[in-house]
């Protein structure tokens, strides 16, 4: 367990540092075209090989990781803010507000995530913000459920009763006594959502509905690689995918360790 935590934390650190520092430390142009060196297999000069116009794939993967991570973090934050707000509304007010909100959650969960995302992006033209919006629109549900459930159980605690009988307003009870207690869970949900958001963004980009094709994003690189794959060049497809898997596994490991700390009794190893 300790080993898993350390390994995941190290991996997350490596991923984040790579995305943040590498493009600054080595300010190379990831769009630099070198037609003489197109579709070279992995070598010492190009560890991941080159793509169909001779761009270095390692460089593009690092930049793609940066773009995907950035979009993923922003989108996960947006979804968490929406989910926490909605969950708090339902959990703190209760009654009809709760019923309306939970109906809404049921409604949203009956449309498949990626399909809803595709619809939103298709209607608002592909780009960074529609992608962020489509992740936020589809991923707030789980956070809202978690926050609401937590608030409902907190509302019956003695310290909340004490605050209410002490004359605290509903607003004050919510903001001072209830919200701080749910924030760790919402934070955990947000961290767990980052890989989902990256997944979502790369799937949209792969379908040609995400970021513009020339942007180095992990999904659009896999999309661009489709043409050369059938000619036998596997490296433009393989490496972007690995760059999606590694951060996902690292974050999942880290979140698992965090959850064990939050709730040591729960032995289940499954995700939320």
């Amino acid at each position, binding site marked *: 367990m300790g080993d898993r935590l350390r390994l995941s934390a190290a991996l997350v650190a490596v991923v984040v540092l790579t995305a943040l520092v590498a493009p600054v430390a080595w300010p190379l142009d990831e769009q630099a075209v070198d037609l003489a060196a197109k579709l070279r297999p992995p070598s010492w000069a190009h560890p991941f090989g080159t793509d169909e116009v001779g761009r270095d794939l390692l460089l593009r993967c690092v930049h793609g990781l940066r773009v995907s991570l950035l979009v993923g973090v922003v989108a996960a934050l947006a979804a968490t803010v929406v989910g926490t707000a909605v969950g708090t509304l339902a959990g703190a007010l209760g009654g009809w507000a709760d019923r309306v909100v939970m109906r809404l959650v*049921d*409604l949203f*969960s*009956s*449309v*498949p*995530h*990626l*399909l*809803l995302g*595709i*619809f*939103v*992006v*298709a*209607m*608002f*033209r592909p780009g960074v913000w529609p992608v962020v919006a489509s992740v936020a629109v589809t991923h707030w549900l789980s956070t809202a459920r978690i926050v609401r459930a937590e608030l409902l159980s907190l509302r019956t605690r003695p310290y909340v009763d004490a605050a209410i009988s002490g004359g605290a307003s509903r607003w004050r009870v919510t903001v001072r006594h209830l919200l701080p207690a749910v924030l760790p869970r919402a934070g955990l949900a947000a961290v767990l959502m980052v*890989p989902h958001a990256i*997944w979502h963004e*790369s*799937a949209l980009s*792969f*379908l*040609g*509905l995400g970021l513009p094709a020339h942007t180095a994003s992990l*999904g659009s690189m*896999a999309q661009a*690689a*489709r043409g050369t*794959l*059938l000619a*036998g060049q*596997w490296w433009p*497809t*393989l490496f*972007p*995918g690995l760059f*999606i*898997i590694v951060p*996902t*596994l690292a974050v*999942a490991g880290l979140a698992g360790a965090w959850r064990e700390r939050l709730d040591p009794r729960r032995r*289940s*190893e*499954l995700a939320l």
Partner: protein
Amino acid sequence: MSALPWGAMARMTGRRLLAAVPVLAVVTFAVFAVAAASPFDPAYAGSSGPVAGRDVLDQVRRNLGADRPFAVRWWEWVTHALAGDLGDSATLRQPVSQVIGERIGWSVLLCGVAFVLAVVAGTVLGVLAARRRGGLFDKAVTALSYMLEAAPPFWIGLLAVWLFALRLDVLPAGGLTDTGSDAVTAGQVLPHLVLPACVLAVTQLPWFVLYVRQGVGDALAEDPVRGARARGLGERTVLLGHALRSGLLPVLTLIGSRVPELITGALLVETVFSWPGIASATVEAATSVDFPLLAALTVLATAAVLLGNLLSDLLYGLADPRVAHEGM
């Protein structure tokens, strides 16, 4: 086993169908509202928009009814849809109902085969892993499951194409039939089905493996199993007769709720393999902003999810008689 509670199940199905009406109404209304808020002009869809003059575009908008409020258009769409007319697809130049009719069978075939493969393989692997938790096989299966869960389906699909269609040259890379052959025969479709169905199954596999492993593993640690062992029953009887029954049923009842993930997987897998199903039509409709097609397919997917939930709850009530169908 006592007689099945047919009456209760029928009543629950009826209630759910009634409850689905407002859900579908709200989803379609939201679809029209989003389309109305989007900067996209339907007059440009699939027509010679950029070269047409202003008056022509205005006429096209009038013909399409795009100059009226979206609530009016929504109501018109609903009334027409109830009569079986879903409008015309702008890019495929076909009635939407015809597009769906032609393609839905292929999607159901692909998803059905993939789902059965995933359930069978997931159960076998999950039970084998649960038998000796912490063992070498368990560790390998769990690690592989997490890895597959993290891998994007389109990436698995592309690598499968590279390996099986290109390197080994044993299976076709995509499509429904060989190029140059128009006849859709079972002999043509079957080899083309293998790769996409296996890839879709692999994307659904991790969830089954991990849940079956958890369910059966927990059941193995419970009193009935301990009792069976104490009575000296064989390992096979304990595993198949006791642990599997109590550990597997709750998992199998959940399979109906996997419909959203199956649709998500199908969207990507059908696109990778150029499978002529409705999921790949959805992606095409989205890239060319074919609103009538996209709206109908979104509603169809929602209906499929609701149906999956119903199936899930019906099975749950059957598997666990303590859960009454009445309350759901």
